């Protein structure tokens, strides 16, 4: 049996189930207690687990570091950043501290920590509330980075992230929070590091993740009318990255297009391109292409923002160029 949940509700179910299952799971963040979170992810949880939910001052470095210390002393903190744009402020605690501690202390301690929150644009929120920083953190050994695209994936992956014995950064695209999808009644988890083929096709592979999965699916449905059959690989996790699924798909379709909301330079899309260039160049019948944000801060004006960020039309256009 399954039910329909929003992305936000699916995340809440994951946290609720994990808090019920394991007393060491605690929540840290701002406005996450009685207020229920800016995007309602923790709504109602305070009534059930009030003694394990800590509303914090606006101190991203301070409370993220508290999460690291709590993790070192037996807790499994789930930290909410109200917007992951502010991960810049928390970064020392993630990059220099959380990612390194287990290694530097000779594996004597694990940092079981999840830092989660909204990312992304398309919402006229301008440059400081539209960022996608997954590429930065996928660069760091010791961190894992998850970027789900559906309520089903969000729930299964967040449960795995909470149970994981490493620091995990969990990026939730804000345009997805109120999208709906089927979620099983029965408990399930999704392994970290496994991609999912969201659409089977034979002509071209789109490797993508997060909100760009829905843009890519929309483009694929339009392209299908022209007889172009696109396969869509949803990475779901950008660190570790599922090389096999990418390479197997490209082996079948012989064409690779990478669709990513964030800027192109030194990004996840660069990594995917490098993987295929290195280990699958013989599969390719056309050069690898990328659709990403143009290199500018994300502007407020809808006209400007839509110009900077990838659109369905861009995916259709580039796919057709690659097929021709």
């Amino acid at each position, binding site marked *: 049996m399954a039910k329909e949940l929003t992305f936000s509700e699916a995340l809440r179910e994951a946290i609720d189930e994990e808090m019920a299952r394991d007393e060491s799971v605690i929540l840290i963040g701002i406005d996450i207690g009685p207020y229920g979170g800016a995007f309602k992810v923790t709504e109602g949880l305070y009534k059930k687990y009030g003694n394990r939910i800590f509303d914090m001052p606006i101190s991203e*470095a301070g409370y993220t*570091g508290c999460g690291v210390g709590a993790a070192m002393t037996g807790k499994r903190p789930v930290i909410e950043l109200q917007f992951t744009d502010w991960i810049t402020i928390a970064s020392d605690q993630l990059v220099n501290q959380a990612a390194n501690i287990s290694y530097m202390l000779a594996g004597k301690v694990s940092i079981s920590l999840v830092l989660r929150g909204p990312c992304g644009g398309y919402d006229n929120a301008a440059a400081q509330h539209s960022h996608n920083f997954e590429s930065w953190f996928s660069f760091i050994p010791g961190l894992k980075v998850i970027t789900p695209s559906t309520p089903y994936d969000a729930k299964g992956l967040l449960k795995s992230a909470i149970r994981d014995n490493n620091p995990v950064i969990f990026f939730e695209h804000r345009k997805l929070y109120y999208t709906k999808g089927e979620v099983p009644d029965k408990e399930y988890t999704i392994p970290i590091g496994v991609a999912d083929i969201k659409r089977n096709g034979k002509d071209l592979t789109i490797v993508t993740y997060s909100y760009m999965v829905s843009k890519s699916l929309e483009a694929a449905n339009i392209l299908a009318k022209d007889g172009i059959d696109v396969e869509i690989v949803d990475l779901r996790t950008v660190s570790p990255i599922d090389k096999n699924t990418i390479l197997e798909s490209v082996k079948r379709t012989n064409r690779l297009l990478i669709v990513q909301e964030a800027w192109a330079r030194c990004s996840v899309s660069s990594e995917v391109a490098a993987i295929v260039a290195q280990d699958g160049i013989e599969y390719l019948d056309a050069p690898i292409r990328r659709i990403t944000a143009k290199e500018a801060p994300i502007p407020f004006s809808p006209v400007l923002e839509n110009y900077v960020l990838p659109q369905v039309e861009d995916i259709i256009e580039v796919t057709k160029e690659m097929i021709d």
Partner: protein
Amino acid sequence: MDTQEKIEMYIKMLKIRYFEEEAARQIRSGMPGFIHSYVGEEAVAVGACSAIREDDYITSTHRGHGHLIAKGAQLSKMMAELWGKITGYNKGRGGSMHIAAYELGVLGANGIVGGGIPIATGAGLSIKIDGLDKVVLCFFGDGAVNQGTFHEAINIAAVYKLPVIYICENNLYGVGTYQPSVRSVENIADKASGYGIPGEIVDGNDVLSVYEVTLEAVENRARKGEGPTLIECKTYRWYTHFEGDKDDRPPKEIAKWKAKDPIKRFRKHLITEGILNDKKDQEIISGIKKEVADAVKFALESPEPEKEEALLDVYH
């Protein structure tokens, strides 16, 4: 405090002094990396750590050898770590700046000034959630008090009444900068009032004073759920920021502080009290000299890590 406890404090202070002097010699004879000497500040680590239990936590800094010895670490595993050997506390992955013994409740040293302050605070949060009577001693220098993490973490600890004692080792300098010249107030302890918690100033070269003030913060506040305390220990590092760095500090200032040697001072106290005499003192010193020499021998004879060790424990 009984006489045996005082002698143990004295031994730990001497261990730090002799370990650090030897580590400096080792650096000059080919040991890799850098070391930040704790010489001159021994009364802070020993006074504070003598006021807590074995199951309490500490967080340390880049100048962390003293904290570790005060928390009961073995000199052999420390020297091996300084040499990057597999037998070191961190299996050679941390070196001097990151040396930490998790099994002794040391929640990391830190190469980032102020980086450990939120971590100590988070450990305090765990203790509070579990309803335990443990405490956390959070060590940092005067340079760290202008970092955001100091203010953010102390506010959080004050709000949630966490059992954390923030111990500032005010040695007047951050690398080469005289810190009072970049700080708007003379006394760091004054910053406590901004968070509604007690701020104490203590003579950081007087081990018994450090002990008494820490004990008060630990037993009468932290363990009773009364929340954090900020303790400013006024002290001085005898040597340069790191071993081998240049020293621009006024020679008269250095001489003035060396005259306030915390070890000589405590020795005088112990002799006056009849707890120590010259003969016993010499026995203690020769015992420590041997322990340090054995630690060097252990480090030098220990194997290097296998190369493949570099890729272990990246993920847990």
